[in-house]
């Protein structure tokens, strides 16, 4: 078991009002899983993903990653964990606008103090892996949305992390590009066997996952397990309402 969440809560204060982004989530994630997190806007999907990526600490409960409780780790340890174990993909790509595709990928290796030569070599390999070898010297503004997201994927993968965490990775893309990106993520997941956690509104994207969970107002509402396996071909995902009826 890679993750074990026990009664995890996250409470924010917004304009003197308390908001429970997560209200007692119990969840386990195994190594090599492709988990899709779904839910309506404000349901706590992104908050849960940030907890899983050690970007934030829970307000309550226990969040174990490889047996270590992230809620009790210091900022420095969390930073180390992020640089060694997680790769992030964001909806808005979050590339540094002044750096080229190659340099953007290299930023992920900066915390490791990788020698420049090796850094360049690994970044070039990662870009080649996502089919962007010829765009290495272009800055984000010179690339399409799909290409930018591929750069972001290369940046997430260059450190060969144990977990890839993607927050609406296709949210800003058209349908065709969406298919390309999800196809790429799925291929990498199959080939490298990393754990992939994707937050998405898109039912089709979620249908590619090996497991799906639904969040509603910070609570784990329903779960669909075993619809697909690693080796299986993708199948259309059931509608949320149907899924909720089938599981839990």
């Amino acid at each position, binding site marked *: 078991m890679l993750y074990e969440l026990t009664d995890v809560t996250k409470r924010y204060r917004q304009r003197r009002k308390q908001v429970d982004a997560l209200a007692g989530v119990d969840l386990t994630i195994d190594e090599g899983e492709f988990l899709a997190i779904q839910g309506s806007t404000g349901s706590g999907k*992104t*908050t849960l993903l*940030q907890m899983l*990526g050690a*970007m*934030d600490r829970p307000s309550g409960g226990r969040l174990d990653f490889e047996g270590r409780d992230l809620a009790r780790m210091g*900022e*420095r340890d969390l*930073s*180390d964990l*992020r*640089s*060694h174990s997680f790769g*992030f993909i*964001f*909806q*808005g790509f*979050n590339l*540094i*606008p*002044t*750096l080229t595709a190659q*340099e953007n990928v*290299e*930023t*992920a290796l*900066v*915390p490791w103090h990788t020698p*420049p030569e090796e*850094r360049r070599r690994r970044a070039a390999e990662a870009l080649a892996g996502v089919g962007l070898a010829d765009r290495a010297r272009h800055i984000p503004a010179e690339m399409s949305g799909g290409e930018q997201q591929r750069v972001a994927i290369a*940046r997430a993968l260059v450190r060969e992390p144990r977990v890839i965490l993607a*927050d609406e990775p296709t949210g800003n893309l058209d349908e065709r590009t969406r298919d390309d990106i999800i196809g790429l993520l799925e291929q990498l997941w199959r080939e490298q066997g990393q754990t992939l956690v994707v937050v998405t509104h898109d039912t089709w994207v979620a249908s590619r996952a090996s497991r799906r969970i639904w969040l509603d107002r910070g609570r784990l509402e329903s779960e669909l397990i075993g619809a697909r396996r690693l080796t299986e071909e993708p199948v259309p995902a059931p509608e949320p309402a149907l899924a909720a009826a089938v599981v839990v």
Partner: protein
Amino acid sequence: MFFTYVFRELRRRHRQALLTALGLAVGVALVVAVTAYADGVSTAQKQVLQSLYGVGTDITVSQQQKMDQSGAQRFSMQPPSQSKQGKKFDRSAVQTSPGQQSISSKRLAQIAALSGVKGVTGSIQMNVMNVAGKYAQASGGSSSQAAQPSASSSSGSSSGGSSSSQQSQTQMSPINVSQLTISGVDLGDLGLGPLSSAQISSGRQLTSSDATGKVALVTRAYAKQNSLKVGDTKKIDGTRFTIVGIVVLPSGTSSSDLYIPLKWAQKLSDNAGKVNQIYVKADSAKVISQVRSEIKQLMPKATVTTSADLASQVSGSLSSASTLADRLGTWLAGAALVAAFAVASLLTVSAVARRVREFGTLKALGWKGRRIVGQVLGESMVQGVIGAGLGVALGIVGARLIAHFSPALKATLGNAGTQGGPPGVQQAAQSVTVALTTPVSLGLIAIAVGLALAGALIAGGFGGWRASRLRPADALRRVD
């Protein structure tokens, strides 16, 4: 990666970076210009003091003239005989500097014997008044009557008054009045006294072998005004002196027009064995006040002046400029620096605020807070270097403009404003005009660069600290 990231980021927001650098530059430029101005005023003050002392002179001694010893020059224009009516005349009157009483040369030996005294010399400073013109001529009335005076010097008075009808018959002629200041110099020690800071521009310096010679030095200004050159002669009260050198004294110096051997000055002014100004050099700066007290004990009626006394007597526009530079300049430069630092800090924080998403992403990638602080500091320091360069350049230009456009500074030393005293004492006050320079030293440039970098460090440190405190989740949430 660090430098690539720094320079690309600055290039992306080059307008804001330039604005930040300009803000720092303005602050630094003001510090450079104001400090250069203050240094210039300070230099001017030193020039004034030097002009009155001469290099190496620590104390001057003079004695004020008693009331009844002072008097204006009187010239009678009445011809000695009727045959002289309408004829030319040329008269000179030599007088030691007004307000200064002669002191016996024996005092020099007595002062030299005092403890702490390294050297003593004396000089005679005198004025030569020359009046030239034609005697008045009576054109009508009684031919036996003597001609009436047609002119007098500054305070000359008429003699032999007559009726108005007689005056109306007298033909007036123009009278030329000129004045010349002369210093008699002891040629035994030229390192002390009125010629100690002089430089020869042509000809030669006076030497000890000239002690009894009829030789003179003239200042360049006087030589130019009177078309004199080396080899020419100058007649003083009937004695012709050969000009052996043209002399230049430092800017702001209140010099005499002519310098002649002391013995000749004593002879012309009828002051054999006397001087009216004594120059003393002390063993060290520490014993100046002690030597001053000893001289005061020796010569209770004498005026003993040290450089500290002179500094306190400096008044006029130079003093005002010095006060302005010290007070207003310091506050102005300080306020400009604070404003520049504040603007730089605000712009940096504003830039950081616009890059929350970027820094949040980097933190999500595992970048440590100190790495992000370093990145922001690096960008800020580059702006600081640009600001320093621009600021120093602007400051130098500003300092040059101040020097170019500022009027000459005037310093008044002594009791110029004394009212009701004897005329001589009033004239003893001296005004010296000096041109303002605004020197920008390497030290000042180093300070300016240091200030700009300090400003950048503060701005970058503050901005970087704000960026490093961001939690990745908060940073990403704020924009998502």
